[in-house]
């Protein structure tokens, strides 16, 4: 099991202002699986994703990612999970002062064992794989929305992560580029047997999933 969430509870605020968001979530995802999570706005999808990605601290229940317990974990454990996870954001979240190539290299610079040449080479190949071989040296502002999201996919995949977490990656894209981006993501993930948990509202892309789940009233239900 790559992702194993059991009876996860999470609420924002404290005291009388406590706002429960997750009320005992159970979710298990196997290696190589592509799982889509839908659910109404405000149902806690982003919250759950940030907990699984090691960005937010949970203190109730169990969240085991790649064998690492994240509930009540320390910073070190969370950083370890973040490094093995590729995050794709709703807004591409590229660094605006870096070119496409340099953005992808940011993933690789965390690994000290590569040379500059190796990093560039790898980033170039992954950008070619998402169809951007002609846009290596473009800054994000010179790219279209779909191209930016593809750079962001390349950046998430460059570190050969075990898990990809994507939070509404097509929300700001038109139908065609959204579909293209997700197709590329699926193809590359399948090639490397990477696990994907993708949050979406977008019913047009449900067909890429192996399994679809829904988050509602703080619990996950199969669809």
């Amino acid at each position, binding site marked *: 099991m790559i992702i194993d969430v059991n009876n996860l509870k999470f609420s924002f605020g404290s005291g009388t202002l406590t706002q429960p968001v997750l009320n005992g979530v159970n979710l298990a995802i196997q290696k190589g699986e592509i799982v889509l999570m839908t659910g109404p706005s405000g149902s806690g999808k*982003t919250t759950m*994703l*940030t907990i699984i*990605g090691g*960005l*937010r601290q949970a203190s109730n229940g169990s969240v085991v990612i790649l064998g690492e317990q994240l509930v009540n974990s320390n910073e070190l454990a969370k*950083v370890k999970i*973040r*490094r093995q*996870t590729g*995050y794709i*954001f*709703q807004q591409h*979240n590229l*660094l*605006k*002062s*870096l070119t496409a190539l*340099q953005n992808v290299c*940011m*993933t690789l*610079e*965390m690994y*000290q064992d590569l040379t500059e040449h190796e990093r560039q080479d790898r980033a170039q190949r992954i950008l070619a794989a998402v169809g951007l071989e002609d846009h290596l040296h473009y800054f994000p502002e010179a790219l279209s929305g779909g191209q930016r999201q593809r750079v962001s996919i390349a*950046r998430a995949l460059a*570190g050969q992560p075990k898990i990809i977490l994507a*939070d509404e990656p097509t929300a700001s894209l038109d139908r065609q580029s959204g579909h293209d981006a997700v197709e590329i993501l699926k193809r590359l993930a399948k090639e490397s047997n990477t696990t994907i948990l993708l949050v979406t509202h977008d019913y047009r892309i449900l067909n890429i999933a192996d399994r679809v789940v829904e988050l509602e009233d703080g619990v996950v239900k199969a669809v």
Partner: protein
Amino acid sequence: MKIFNLWYFPARLAWRQLIHDKPKLVAATSGVLFACVLVFMQLGFKDSLYTSAASMPLKLDGDLFLIHQQSEALWRTVQFERSELMRALGHPAVTEVAPLYLSLASFKNINTHVKRTLMVYGFDPDMELLNVNSLKELKYPLRIKDTVVFDELSRPEFGPVGELIQSGQDRTEVNDYKVKIIGLFQLGISFAADGNLVASDLNFMRIFPEREINKIDIGVVRLQPGASVQQVQSELREHLNEFVKVYSYEQIRDHERRYWENVAPIGFIFDFGTVMGLVVGMVIVYQILFTEITNYRFEFATLKAMGYEHHYFIRVVFSSALILAILGFIPGLLLSNSLYDLAESQIFLPMTMTLNKIITVFAFILLMCIVAGFLAIHRLKSANPADMF
């Protein structure tokens, strides 16, 4: 390699972020440049003050120097008995002694008749108390009644004395007393005096009728070749009255320097200016770093989500500070250098760009940027990835 990358990557990111917005980078570096120029000028003036304050003691030709213990600086001496100096002659290693008389006096500009204060040195021309060649050459004419020699490095407000005496206009008044300028010598101005004049001891007494030949300002003592200055100094101290200080050449120079550094408020003014320049620069750099972090906090949060740790961002901030320090310092140095030249040619203060000064100012600027970095990093805490996505 690991240590290198630890700083290389964040520094490279800082550099790329800084050069991405060029107008902002220019604004940022001009803040550092401003601080840099301000500090260079303060240090330059201060240094110039000390060098020129010491220009007279530096030219004094003697082994030991007697001054009254209450003499704060050579331009405000307390006089003491000439007999005290004569007692030094009793020491077997002492070959000759000579009194030096000092006083400030007004000097009338030959052309404009405007009076301005300068320093008058009086001593027996044969004794050659100031080690200036042009002065030694004039030692015979200096003994003629009512003659003086003018320092050609004096400020231009005293008039083009060199040209005037060549055309025969060599008469003026010093302390309302008519004198003839018979030549020029070179000493240099100080903050105490805008110009200098040398007269024989007898002429000095004519210019200053209230002064007595038996009340001297400095006693110059010369020793036999090979005599131990230190030994004679301590022996003289025992023999002479305790209100007389016996200084070596280095000590009298340092005494003068210390006066300007510590006693005179002017030293403090320059230190204050330096600190103000650095504080203003620091606030500017802090502002820049703070807005940088604010603008980039979303990107920092993204990097954090990718697995970058807090210390990486601290390095980015300090790298930015360092880059700003260097980018501001280089043009600041060039500009200051030109301003030094300008000051030298326009206000006749010796301003020299020394390696020492360059290193000092760079250290100051670096420190300033590092402190600004320390103040700015607390802003990094706002880059929490969980609250951003």
